[in-house]
């Protein structure tokens, strides 16, 4: 049991690291996440497999883990002093800040300019950060020294599970396409992603931490949700340019269509939620002698203990007329997935779960839509690409953005919504043999809540 849990943790860390190294291309980040038409978008729309490469540039650089520099060079986040003794990190005069470390560690491919910091909580009267915890018979309140409430949610990635996405596996880390005859192709890939981890108080605890009275017979708990999966995929697709289509008032239109069947063999899967809490008595008080309440279920598959397989069908069409390209892709038009593994259940006062062999399966029509469009605007000096996309994959997202090229220089900007508002700002430099791209990133600081800016960097080689 313990070794299985250790392996599970190891697998989670592996998936997390893979998620970091893949993430989104820096060119795309500079345009708020917009994906322009081209073969690189074939994962989102199989018709792009037949679309000419380079028409709207490409985003092929490797994202550099510049966050490592931030992590190690900044005394607040560097764990290196611990190498010569943990006390170097934890003594009172150490600059080490767990919050800065956490923020930079979870954004390893961005150099954070203003990472979250406990300095926000410094009380000028004492000179050190203070967290105020007020305990009374009818409530607990956690605030900063000024009495302002503190954000209590920590999250990473977004939760996915086969119950919500069916056979839609995460975007591949890499794909190796092999062209066959007659517009057919095969591709091999590996994916590791769908990573989500969150820690939050339940609704009752959230209220209580904001100063409300404890309610009688109520459970106050902290909830952890986690998801991740990894596996290998094999795609078999058809993509072709059809004869041009004369459309009235639009003119001669190029049409590309594509279909792909993708099968996956799953190595690792996790979906789970776990809560630990205390129950108040009929008077709304917490009995200090009462054991905590554990609840939750976790389903996991790790190599040597179950596996997964599934298949799905994707469809797409791309049309191009008067210099404008529009594409629509539907992934998971029909999908089936089945995972076998182990289910852990917590229900009650014991911290050790019951463990039973179990499986998860899903079949049905849970499509993910992806619509994108782009055009090139000729200018007197340089060229301008503008585009937009709109998609639905569990939730709606959309972006508009553009790239201005002047000689070897590229300037990018974009606006979008994707789990909240986002904007992008980026630049690039294209030279014979290599390209360098950079983008400004933003996210909300954990705990302290301000907007954190970061710089992402990628390097591409083209021989």
């Amino acid at each position: 049991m313990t070794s299985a849990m250790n392996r599970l943790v190891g697998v989670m860390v592996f998936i997390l690291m893979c998620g970091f190294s893949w993430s989104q291309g820096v060119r795309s980040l500079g345009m708020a996440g917009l994906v322009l038409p081209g073969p690189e978008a074939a994962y989102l729309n199989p018709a792009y497999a037949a679309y000419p490469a380079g028409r709207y540039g490409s985003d092929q650089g490797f994202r550099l883990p510049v966050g490592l520099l931030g992590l190690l060079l900044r005394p607040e986040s560097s764990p290196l002093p611990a190498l010569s003794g943990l006390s170097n990190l934890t003594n009172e005069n150490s600059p080490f800040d767990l919050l800065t470390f956490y923020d930079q560690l979870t954004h390893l491919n961005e150099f954070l300019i203003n990472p979250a910091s406990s300095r926000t909580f410094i009380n000028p009267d004492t000179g050190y950060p203070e967290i105020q915890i007020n305990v009374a018979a009818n409530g607990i309140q956690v605030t900063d020294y000024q009495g302002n409430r503190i954000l209590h949610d920590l999250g990473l990635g977004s939760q996915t599970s086969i119950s919500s996405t069916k056979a839609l596996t995460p975007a591949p880390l890499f794909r190796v396409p092999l062209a066959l005859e007659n517009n057919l192709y095969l591709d091999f890939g590996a994916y590791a992603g769908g990573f989500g981890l969150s820690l939050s108080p339940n609704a009752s605890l959230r209220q209580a931490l904001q100063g409300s009275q404890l309610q009688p017979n109520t459970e106050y708990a902290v909830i952890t949700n986690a998801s991740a999966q990894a596996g290998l995929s094999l795609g078999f697709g058809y993509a072709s340019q059809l004869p041009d289509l004369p459309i009235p008032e639009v003119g001669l239109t190029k049409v590309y269509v594509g279909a792909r069947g993708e099968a996956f063999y799953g190595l690792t899967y996790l979906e789970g939620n776990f809560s630990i809490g205390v129950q108040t008595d009929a008077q709304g008080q917490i009995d200090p002698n009462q054991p905590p309440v554990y609840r939750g279920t976790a389903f996991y598959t790790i190599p040597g203990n179950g596996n997964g397989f599934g298949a799905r069908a994707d469809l797409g069409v791309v049309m191009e007329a008067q210099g404008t390209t529009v594409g629509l892709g539907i992934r998971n038009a029909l999908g089936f997935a089945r995972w076998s593994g182990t289910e852990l259940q917590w229900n009650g006062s014991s911290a050790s779960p019951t463990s039973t062999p179990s499986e998860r399966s899903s079949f049905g029509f849970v499509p993910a839509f992806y619509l994108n469009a782009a055009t090139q605007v000729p200018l007197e000096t340089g060229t301008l690409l503008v585009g937009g996309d709109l998609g639905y994959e569990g939730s709606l997202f959309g972006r508009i953005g553009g790239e201005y090229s002047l000689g070897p220089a590229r300037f990018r900007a974009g606006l979008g919504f994707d789990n909240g508002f986002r904007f992008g700002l980026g630049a690039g430099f294209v030279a014979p043999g290599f390209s360098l791209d950079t983008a400004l990133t933003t996210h909300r600081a954990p705990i302290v809540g301000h907007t954190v800016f970061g710089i992402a960097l990628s390097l591409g080689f083209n021989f």
Partner: protein
Amino acid sequence: MPRIAFALLLLLLTGCSASTRYNFKFDILSFIPQNQRSLNIPSGYYPTVYPNLEGQLVPLPISLDILERGQIAIQGNVVNTGSIPMTGSYEIRLAPESDTNLNDNSGGDVGLGRTSFDVAAGQSQSIASSVNLSATQNSAAFNIIKSGSFRVAIRVEVNSNGGRFDLTAAQATVIGRPFALIK
């Protein structure tokens, strides 16, 4: 166990640096039922321990050696309803959770901040005591709160022919550096 869970929760939910301090402020009065916040003093020599011999338990979520200092403060009123002057004293009693007699100086209980009062007939007098606890101030009491949950009570000794002792505030503050957990 719930204390450990609670401590874990706080450590997880609030980011901290090596110099961050957690200030726990316990409103002890809120744990004492409203109808027990007033003590009637009968005529004659009356020694008692308020609210009772077991004291009020203060559930301290962190029972580890991370506390740097603390403070216990009480406020109240002594009311003399008799016809002769009321004389007496009070002191704060502190004991580890395991000691259920806060008046016998055995099992760990200690007395702090003994204060005398002298209230004229028919008058009342407000009282306030604040005791600092650290490795150098009241170290025996400091060691009690460092060991985890503790009990607190007030011992009152009065000579009078009748009166009342009202508690209006009782607060314990402990300040600790969570990173001191890791050595």
